[in-house]
């Protein structure tokens, strides 16, 4: 771009008080209607979770992590527990494994339901903003029945899970899942089937798989490019039950541009994600054995941990979510805990994806990447 174009450029701050910027600020340089430069700024949500974790013991740490991302609270707290279990070398009961997996997938459904609404709201359809959120209420009712809390479930603990499935919970989960299945065709019509939606998202926010890997994107954002990169299949946590059943990693292949994806492909990918989650839950529920839900010795074991390093990873709704823990000998608290949020990369990648797009496409681009500011600010 020649410098005389930039003379006419105007700078617009997208955030932090902007209606649709959820607590972040992006500096956009506009020439006419086109964005020529995008400078994402982080830090408006920063609560120093990593430093906080250094002062919490291993049972309390997950409470901090839950509050980083409310939408996938259990998926967010799980890597910490997995890391602790790797350091102590805990093996948890079979029933607890399956219950954890079911709850993880259930939480993923909840997060994706929230995302449907959020994305539609960013594209300006308020009916679709609220319809998925109604279904989400049923999901939250089920969470509340099980754990007593709607968002921050704090369900798992090192060595097992805290609350047992009850018949009431099974009934409420059945209601929530059948509601998702029942409303899926409607949402398909309202989102992917809508001509105005296709106009807004097709060809918007392009990137290739190679670029996405270099930027560190993961999860649905890269599966939409056709790469079946999924930690549930590739590197499953030993205390989860993904290996017990047969399931397929969902990917989206676009014939027009193989190996690339745009906002529309990312939407399709997330539809497939929710179908996969439903599939996994359906297959795991009959396998649920009777037995204990927590290893009784675990509570004593996690009081003081041996020296070691553990890397707990889980495939979150938005991508690879991981916690890297280092403990010293006989530690009550971690020496260092690194939280790797998936949206750290997707928010950074706005810097590369957005230039060249129209100003009105900006909400479509960031909405399709499913950003959550807690993940990059922590």
């Amino acid at each position, binding site marked *: 771009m020649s410098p005389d174009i930039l003379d006419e450029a105007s700078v617009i701050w997208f955030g932090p008080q902007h209606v649709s910027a959820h607590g972040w600020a992006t500096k956009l340089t506009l020439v006419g209607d086109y964005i020529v430069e995008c400078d994402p700024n982080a830090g408006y949500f920063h609560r120093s979770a990593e430093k906080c974790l250094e002062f919490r013991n291993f049972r309390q740490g997950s409470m901090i992590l839950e509050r980083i991302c409310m939408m996938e609270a259990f998926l967010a707290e799980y890597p910490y527990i997995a890391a602790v279990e790797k350091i102590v070398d805990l093996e948890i009961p079979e029933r607890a494994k399956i219950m954890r997996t079911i709850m993880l997938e259930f939480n993923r459904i909840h997060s994706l339901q929230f995302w449907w609404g959020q994305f539609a709201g960013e594209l300006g359809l308020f009916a679709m903003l609220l319809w998925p959120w109604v279904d989400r209420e049923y999901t939250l009712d089920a969470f509340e029945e099980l*754990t007593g809390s709607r968002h921050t479930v704090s369900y798992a603990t090192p060595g097992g899970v805290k609350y047992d499935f009850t018949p009431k919970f099974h009934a409420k989960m059945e209601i929530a899942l059948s509601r998702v299945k029942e409303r899926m065709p409607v949402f398909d019509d309202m989102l992917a089937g809508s001509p105005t939606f296709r106009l807004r998202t097709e060809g918007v926010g392009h990137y290739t798989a190679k670029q996405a890997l270099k930027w560190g994107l993961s999860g649905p954002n890269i599966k939409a490019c056709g790469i079946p990169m999924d930690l549930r299949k590739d590197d499953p946590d030993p205390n989860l039950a993904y290996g017990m059943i047969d399931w397929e990693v969902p990917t989206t292949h676009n014939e027009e541009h193989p190996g690339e994806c745009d906002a529309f492909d990312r939407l399709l990918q997330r539809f497939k994600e929710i179908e996969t989650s439903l599939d996994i839950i359906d297959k795991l529920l009959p396998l649920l054995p009777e037995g204990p839900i927590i290893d009784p010795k675990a509570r004593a074991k996690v009081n003081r941990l041996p020296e070691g390093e553990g890397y707990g990873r889980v495939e979150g709704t938005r991508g690879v979510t991981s916690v890297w823990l280092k403990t010293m000998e006989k530690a009550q608290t971690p020496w260092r805990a690194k939280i790797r949020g998936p949206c750290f990369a997707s928010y950074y990648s706005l810097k590369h994806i957005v230039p060249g797009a129209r100003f009105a496409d900006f909400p479509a681009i960031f909405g399709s990447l499913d950003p959550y500011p807690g993940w990059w600010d922590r």
Partner: protein
Amino acid sequence: MGFVGNLGDIFRILKHVFRQVFRRPFTYFYPFEDRPYPEATRGRHIHIREKCTACAQCVRACPVAAIRIDKEDKKFEKDCALYFDYTRCIFCGDCVSACRFEALFHTPIVDISEGDREDLVYGPDKITTLDRDPLEWRGRRFR
């Protein structure tokens, strides 16, 4: 797709929206109606001082230091007074699961708003009693 396909899509969307208009709305009149809360709801706490042994496990378990213990204030043999600061409490349930003497529980009361910040520190007089049934002042129950 084509023009006709788009027209079909548009009419399908209009059909969904039109059906939605004549459905019963999901929301309810909140202050007057409320849903029943499950047994497990992690609302405000209740402290049963007869059973308390002043072991302070709940205070140690609290990740946000929301509980203050006063061991001098004894009403029974070996109990203590607990002060819950609900401006800090995150309702994680750790204190309840840490209590081995069944002296601390959650209640399904979740609407604990107050006009003053100091009123949210529930001292021993407030934390040991339920001043009202959940949902009592709201009138009709719903769903």
